[in-house]
């Protein structure tokens, strides 16, 4: 028996399996990052002194990274829109730019971290650095994960488009949802760590 509703939507829920699956996963990710934000709040409120992020961290660089990530979100949704219009070539361009922008984000993070280490600022230095590295580190792992999936869909995974374009479009949409979520987390991370 074929597994139903992999591509077609089930009538009463109006959704296919993958869409529900990815939103459930994102719900769990909200709780994961929520715990880390709760940690930040508890540690900061309970501390006797807590540095302002802008005194330690590089705000212009992070602003640039914020713009990079937001742009990659736009290119991601445009990639999906291209597939909806069945323009495979345009999809590849947008998907490629999305992966590229993810790479730019990672490179900037590499420079940021290296600069911190160079100035003897490690997770063990103080609790601000600890939660900074943990929050941005976990976020970075999610960026890498998203890039791997996006690269797969750009490369070997795109073969599915020839046999089942609708299924492939759904996969791009679902991985796009994950990518937007990664952007969403950064939208909250950035002011919390860098501007407050």
């Amino acid at each position, binding site marked *: 028996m074929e597994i139903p509703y992999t591509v077609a939507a089930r009538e009463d829920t109006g959704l296919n399996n993958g869409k*529900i699956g990815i939103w*459930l996963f994102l719900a769990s990710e909200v*709780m994961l990052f929520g*715990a880390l934000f709760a940690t930040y709040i508890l540690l900061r409120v309970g501390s006797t002194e807590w540095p302002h992020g802008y005194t330690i961290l590089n705000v212009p660089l992070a602003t640039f990274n914020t713009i990079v990530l937001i742009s990659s979100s736009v290119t991601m949704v445009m990639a999906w829109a291209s597939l909806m219009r069945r323009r495979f070539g345009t999809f590849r361009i947008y998907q490629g730019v999305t992966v590229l922008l993810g790479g730019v984000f990672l490179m900037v993070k590499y420079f940021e971290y290296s600069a911190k280490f160079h100035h003897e600022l*490690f997770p*063990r230095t103080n609790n601000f650095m*600890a939660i900074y590295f943990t929050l941005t580190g*976990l976020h970075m792992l999610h960026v890498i994960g998203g890039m791997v999936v996006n690269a797969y869909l750009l490369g070997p995974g795109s073969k599915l488009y020839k046999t089942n374009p609708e299924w492939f479009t759904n996969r791009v949409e679902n991985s796009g949802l994950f990518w937007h979520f990664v952007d969403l987390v950064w939208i909250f991370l950035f002011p919390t760590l860098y501007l407050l």
Partner: protein
Amino acid sequence: MAFPKINMLSYQSYFLGGVTMIASFFIPEGGAAQAGWTSYPPLANISGSGQTWWLIGMIFLITSSLLGSINFIVTTIQLRAPGLTFMRFPFFVWAQFVTSFLLLLAFPPLEAAGVLQLMDRVAGTSFFMPTGLVVSGQVAPNAGGGNPLLWQHLFWFLAHPEVYVLILPAMGIVAEVIANNTRKPLWGYRSMVYSLGFLGFMSFIVWAHHMFMTGMGTVMSTFFQTTTMIISIPSVVILTALILSLWGGSIRFTTPMLFALAFLPMFGIGGLTGLPLGLSVTDIPLHDTYYVIGHFHYVVAPGTLFGLMAGIYYWYPKATGRMMNEFLGKLHFWGSFVFMNLVFMPMFFLGLAGVSRRLFDGGETYQFAQPALHYNVMSSWGAWMLGIAQIPFIINFFWSMKGGRKVGANPWEATTLEWAAPSPPPHGNFDHPPEVYRGPYEYSVPGRTTDFQPQFERA
């Protein structure tokens, strides 16, 4: 399942997690994880290297649970057979459904906490280490600005829903077995379902009743005590409905039914003994004593485990095509039932006498514990006898695979969908896609020649 590959990934992650945890026992120096399942800092932070393995193992296990939950929820919503509406679900399916939501939303904070504790142990951070912490006469090197209570909140945010994860599926199994072996529908199915939903939601806002002794003020301890009292209501509704389901039934005392019946008073004792623990004032003398151990073992051991046993005896013929032996089953049951009580009942008295848990000598060195020490002896006898009582089960389980009485698709004359599949089910489970025509417990329908009408039969 909706996502077969994720199903497999969930198992593989679980296997890896289990191996990692057990591996900690074989670490030459530093030793196995020894900070308890609660892994409280500062002890867990400074423990030997086994604790790091424990934390890594937890990350694998949590990932496995998350993947599994997603699969269960999507499958339950999307892959229902035609005609299977939500209110035609067997109660067990509802129980698993709610359990999956608990796992999905409660586990991630523990995963985050595990990462934080790993950072503390490996990267020298002090998320959980307070300033000026002294270990073995020396100030701990990386201690500064952390809060052990942060771990407790993140841990118990999961660990309370976790106990409902432990009990809900067992309640589901007991419901199925009771309906089948009373030959009548469950009493109050709708109330039971709504109670499940309410219980699931409430389970997220009671967690700090595990933390009454951490110095929280009266406002928050009253809040958590209140939510804890409220959450006992749906549990009582479900237990009462199960008990009322017996009234007027044509009871078949099969082995699964014996376990399901025993579940009822055992869970009752477990639940009732939870009440003084859930009230902040009465928790003061009882926290961290043997009373707590008695309470949670009553809900989990003769609670969840008896539910599990009922399930194994009930679904064994479906999975293997053979019945387990009834005589060995009854031997297993009576031994387990009697000795389970012998192990855990004395613990209430030990706890009321003030004996703490996690003492290597059971309270022997304490003056006040002397009159209660004999309870330890009772529990120990009970434990050994309980272990011996499992032998008939182990023999039965393996022998019946080849030597058990062969049966067809529906040996228990049950009404739910799984009994439409062949025993054992082939790849794809069903010969042809099943269809559902009615509710899950159409037993003793007036005017019929048989005393059951399966969900999946047209007439």
